[in-house]
């Protein structure tokens, strides 16, 4: 059960990696990177979850000690917030590069956009 959740999260990661390496379309590669980003964020939240946990926000009438006994881990959530922002920044830059590449080559196909040899 619990292993299943992790394995599914890893499957999303692998689907994204597959898109990045195997697909020949810039849009598909960006989509793959988004999927990898989702899977990573999910993994972080999963490792911080505790069964029956509440959000780490103090509500009225609750003592901090009670919160500490019941809430899920706030640190991975703070990390994920940063990671989501990184994902947005990367998406914006990728879209800009995609627009320019399309303007230069008239296609999203990376096999046609291949002057450089690695």
């Amino acid at each position: 059960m619990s292993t299943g959740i992790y394995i599914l999260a890893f499957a999303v990661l692998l689907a994204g990696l597959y898109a990045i390496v195997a697909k020949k379309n810039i849009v598909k590669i960006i989509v793959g990177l988004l999927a990898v980003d989702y899977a990573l964020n999910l993994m972080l939240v999963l490792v911080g979850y505790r069964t029956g946990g509440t959000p780490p926000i103090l509500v009225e009438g609750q003592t901090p000690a009670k919160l500490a006994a019941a809430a899920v881990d706030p640190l991975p959530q703070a990390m994920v917030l940063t990671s989501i922002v990184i994902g947005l920044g990367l998406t914006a830059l990728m879209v800009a590069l995609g627009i320019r590449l399309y303007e230069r080559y008239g296609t999203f196909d990376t096999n046609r956009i291949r002057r450089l040899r690695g």
Partner: protein
Amino acid sequence: MGMEYLVLMLLGVMLAAVLIAVETRDLLSSVIAIGAAGFALSVIFLLLGAPDLAITQVVVETIALVLLIRLIVTRRDTTGETETPRDALRTALVMLAGGVLICGVYFALAGGPGKGTIPPFGQPVLGHKAGDEVPPGASADYLAKSAEQTGAANVVMAVMLDYRAYDTLGEATIIFVAILGTYAVLRRFGRRKETKEPEQ
């Protein structure tokens, strides 16, 4: 327990959406499918006790979708996908690496307790007692002391902007860098005309 099944089901939806996004030929469908996966993710965040992340994920997803649709909406890719033998080889290699990774993950998860494996879902280090081999870590302190030490009721924000505010400075800088990079890439001309084609 019921909630875990809900999470599992939503994860299944997410995986299906990602697979559709990766495999469909139509780029617009692909982008919309990845958007669906993102929204499913935000519901999962909500279920896992992370409302901050759910809100952020929804709004970021919306903006990202607008950007992606901007990218494809006026640009038709008339070419089909061109596959070469080299690509097929790469795909095979990636599948192999993926298999190795999955095996690694399985062993990292299922070695049984006390064998250096990832703790099972729902039992994080946070739940440990103070005398355990691995103590509960910094998060227990955050939960117990943030109201007293920082005065913020939302512990995630207390971590983000007080205990680990330096990371958030980095985060603000990342979005700054990415946007500057977008401007740099979108300049009409990178080089000045007169030196671009010299003496011709």
